[in-house]
């Protein structure tokens, strides 16, 4: 194992090289800053694709494992590895950063160097979260991502950015404290942070419940589940496009990932004990956030609320304890990253041209800005789960899987599908249909950087929608493994 090439470390730390290079580039030379960042992440993305293709999906357990001493005095190790659950998130994370660089190419004009530094730093933390198999290491990356995100929202955000970023920080930090306490408690019991060692260790039921709640609070806030979701609309609305894309694409996925990775296998009894509660909260999130979308007047806020609704499906699928539901949930996280990320990029494109996020400002864009309208339509359809797009596969598997374990919940959750169609098409109508407004003519056509960020998403929407097997097969072994802990 030790002789193996440390590809995970390479993927994880490669952006650091970019960061170091950026320090040597004059801040006035913005073009060079952008190109260096782009190339760094492009290589990182290529490596993560290479990883994806070399992943053996039939083999159980973790692959490409790296384990080095890190903090020997507390028995914490630098322990990295991927399995069928995390493998999809590595390319998703690097892709998200890549697209953020492209979409910010022209729209970020102040403090360009700092912005790209923050993006590269975010990439390290995001990838780290999905690779770490040592609880302490995981926690470090989990927290580390707050710093660049705090800055990205707080510096390059909209008018109410300070309020939003503090709210975001306080919320998530509040959750993290419980996560840390729970991790420390586990360390006290077993003297290790080693995830693999802890798998299959049992706790007394009382302790297990408390630990479960400790982890849950952190994850639930990140997801975000109802009722701890109110930071998300604010953060999304005020964040710059890249910030929104990272939030939607990766940051809130960390919560869902944490649930599959830690809650189910480490605390199986507590998971089953609390499952009902989480299913109910998920259904509330789906319906409540969906209804909230109907009344939004702000483009980004609407999409942010739709995220809450979509993530409700994800938590529903995870706590179905059923391979179909869990696979659907993991795939839906990827889907949501793609679709909602793309929608935020689309909003960014139009915001850069008109500087308005008010839905009522628009109307008739289908006539005035046709290519853009077509792209937006594709993501709208994916968001409402039209068969043939990726959104359908995720939703269908989640609902079907959950139906096998709990029928009543699905009856309520499936109403979200109706509401979803209503609010997205209502949004589309208000922005793109009817008579075009005079001032919307003559908008600058979409730039190459914008198109190169958005068009690949179209490809992914249809690839996952029409041939999901490619992605679902990756998870099979690991999902089955997780489920063995539950029974």
């Amino acid at each position, binding site marked *: 194992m030790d002789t193996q090439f440390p590809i995970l470390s390479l993927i994880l730390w490669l952006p650091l090289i970019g960061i170091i290079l950026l320090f040597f580039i004059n801040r006035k030379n913005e073009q060079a800053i952008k190109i260096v960042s782009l190339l760094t992440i492009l290589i990182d993305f290529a490596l993560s694709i290479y990883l994806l293709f070399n992943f053996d999906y039939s083999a159980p357990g973790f692959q490409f494992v790296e384990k080095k001493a890190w903090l020997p005095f507390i028995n914490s190790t630098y322990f990295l590895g991927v399995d069928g659950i995390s493998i999809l998130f590595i390319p998703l994370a690097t892709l998200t950063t890549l697209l953020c660089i492209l979409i910010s190419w022209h729209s970020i004009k102040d403090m360009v160097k700092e912005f790209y530094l923050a993006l590269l730093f975010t990439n390290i933390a995001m990838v780290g979260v999905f690779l770490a198999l040592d609880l302490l290491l995981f926690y470090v990356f989990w927290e580390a991502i707050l710093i660049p995100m705090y800055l990205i929202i707080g510096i390059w955000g909209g008018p109410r950015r300070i309020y939003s970023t*503090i*709210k975001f920080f*306080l*919320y998530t930090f*509040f959750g993290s404290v419980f996560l840390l306490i729970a991790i420390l408690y586990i360390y006290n019991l077993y003297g290790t942070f080693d995830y693999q060692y802890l798998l299959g260790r049992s706790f007394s039921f009382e302790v297990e419940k408390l630990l479960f709640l400790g982890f849950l609070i952190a994850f639930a806030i990140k997801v975000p589940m109802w*009722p*701890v979701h*109110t*930071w998300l609309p604010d953060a999304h609305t005020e964040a710059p496009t890249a910030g929104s894309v990272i939030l939607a694409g990766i940051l809130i996925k960390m919560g869902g990932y944490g649930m599959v990775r830690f809650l189910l296998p480490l605390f199986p009894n507590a998971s089953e004990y609390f499952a009902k509660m989480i299913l109910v909260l998920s259904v509330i999130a789906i319906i*409540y956030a969906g*209804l*909230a*979308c*109907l*009344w939004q007047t702000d483009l980004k806020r609407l999409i942010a609320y739709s995220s809450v609704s979509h993530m409700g499906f994800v938590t529903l699928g995870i706590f179905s304890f*059923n*391979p*179909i539901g869990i*696979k*659907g949930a993991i795939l839906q996280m990827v889907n949501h990253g793609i679709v909602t990320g793309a929608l935020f990029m689309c909003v960014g494109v139009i915001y850069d041209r008109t500087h308005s996020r008010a839905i009522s400002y628009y109307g*008739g864009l*289908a*006539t005035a800005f*046709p290519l853009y309208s077509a792209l937006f339509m594709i993501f709208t*359809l994916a968001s409402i789960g*039209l*068969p*043939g797009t990726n959104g*359908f*596969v995720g939703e*269908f*598997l989640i*609902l*079907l*899987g959950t*139906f*096998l374990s709990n*029928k009543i919940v*699905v*009856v309520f959750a*499936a*109403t979200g*599908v*109706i509401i979803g*169609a*209503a609010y997205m*098409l*209502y949004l589309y*109508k208000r922005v*793109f*249909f*009817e*008579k075009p407004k005079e001032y919307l003519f003559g908008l600058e056509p979409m730039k190459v950087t914008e198109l190169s960020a958005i068009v690949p998403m179209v490809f992914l929407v249809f690839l996952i929608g*029409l*041939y*999901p*097997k490619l992605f*679902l*097969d990756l998870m*099979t072994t690991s999902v089955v493994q997780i489920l063995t802990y539950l029974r």
Partner: protein
Amino acid sequence: MNVTVVLIPALPLIASFITLIFGKRYFKDKAHVLPVLSLFGSFILSLFVLYDVIQGRTYNFDLYSWLVAGSLKVGLGFQVDPLSAMMCAMVTSLSFLIHVYSIGYMHGDPGYYRFFSYISLFTFSMLMLVLGNNLAQLFLGWELVGLCSYLLIGFWYEKRSAANAAIKAFVVNRVGDFGFALGIFMVFYYLGTLYYTEIFEKLPSIKTAYIEILGYEVYVPFLIAFLLFCGAMGKSAQFPLHVWLPDAMEGPTPVSALIHAATMVTAGVFMVSRLSPLYVMSDEAMAMVAFVGAFTCFMAATIAPTQFDIKRVIAYSTLSQLGYMFMACGVGAFSAGMFHLFTHAYFKALLFLGAGSVIHAMHHAPDPNDIRYMGGLKKYMPITYATFLIASLSISGIPGLAGFFSKDEILAMAYFSPYPWGKAIWLIGLIVAGFTAFYTFRIFFKAFHGEFRGRSYLHGKEPHESPKVMTIPLILISIGAIFSGWLGIPESLGGGAHFQKFLEQVVYHHEVEITDHTLEYGLMVLSVVAGLIGISLAYLIYVKNPRLETLFSSNFKKLYKFLYNKWYFDELYHYVFVVPTFFLARTFVNLIVDTFVIDQTVNGSAKATTSFGSLLQRIHNGIINYYLWGIILGLILYFVVYYYLS
């Protein structure tokens, strides 16, 4: 041969994509070439496949694995049997002709390429729907035709009413699909598969299955049938989800003919027939199908005579005819329902395209759809007139034309049905047959007879016949509107009922032996008389004595208003569903909970944190003495606590 089957839907898909991407810049007014050619290809291939099936060769294969997770394994696959081969031939033949017609109808529209791309995409989706070999693919086609319907209803999206109608169609259909999806889940839960053939094999295992819902024991096959039927009510616009179809007339007329009359809206009937072995397991399910159909059939027939928009009248007539098809299914005569679906596709498409031809001629009028501006068009548009007459006679059930055979088949099967509600269904069907003839000939006489009333809008010009590219499809479809019924002439009239026997290889059928042929002929005469009464009444009111026109509306004001306003369903749904939903969204969700309850708690804690922070700030004042004191105090506290705990 598998390749042939796959090519049938693939050709229009490819044409649609190429047209959408390159149409605007490169094809321009030639954008129709590729879709028309591809549809012609699909049509020819469908005929080959149909011939194969008639020879007894059927296909069932998966193209590739689509959804694979846990015990779920579903492919994108094709099942070619009498049912799907027949649908395929019908869809491609009509779609091809309507594509050709659209060359003339859509000429000069800025969205010309977009129209042909969408309508080809629709044809692809519809073919996927009918050719699929499992429920998941049925759902795929089901939703995709819904999407195309949405895109085409909202084709002229700059018009507010079109944009609203598009959303309404999609969302109302989603309500039905909600049930449809749950039905699919139920099938998978109880039978562990979504493939038709496997479902039918495993159906006996749920013969005695019950599920408890809110304390009631519900028969599982009934529940599944009901949930799936919700989807059919949406797609086939049956009560209570019928409200979207009349509004869907905002789309271009060829769309109304192809999607909202001939093909997509019949998907519900197709689905029920496809799953007929499931439906016949539960008498309650059959009764539900029959009465939902009968109610819609009757309701729509009462609304149609009060409307003035020629397309809306035909739309209500479609609702009504779809009701007939469900009535047939609900009395166990699935093949009769499919037969009516088949003939209806031709005569109803012909009615719509004829109306389109008229609208094309009337486009200078303030509302080209309003029959009150028309009149006397017979003189100016002889071909449209003749074909419209054929379609009207066909739908009215005049012997010899397609509609007669299929409608009579339904009425006879209802009357002789083994189900106790058969005779009631027959009676409703008979009454509505009279209504149908009346309102169809009402628009026929209003549009083509009498004096032309729109002259003042034509600036001295005369209305003119549509170009050949539109009239030739009309002529070709009128052949279908006459002869498609001849495929299923019953034995009592000297035919062989080939159509029904062909389908009964795959759809469920009761062995109904009609022994009393005198009674059968009597029923036939009755339904023809009902049709003739309707026509004569229309002639009396709208040609002979136009003063009678207001007889009903002025004497039964309340009832007339009720019918004119479509039984107030739109208003009812608006106040019962739309308004409360938005109210909930606005007050409850956004104002009360989010800003007050949740955020106040969080902001409260934020305030607490800030004040705690400012307290700490006072300590962090940079004076070393304070820090030292702090360290010492901290150490003392630590030791005290440590000592106390141990």
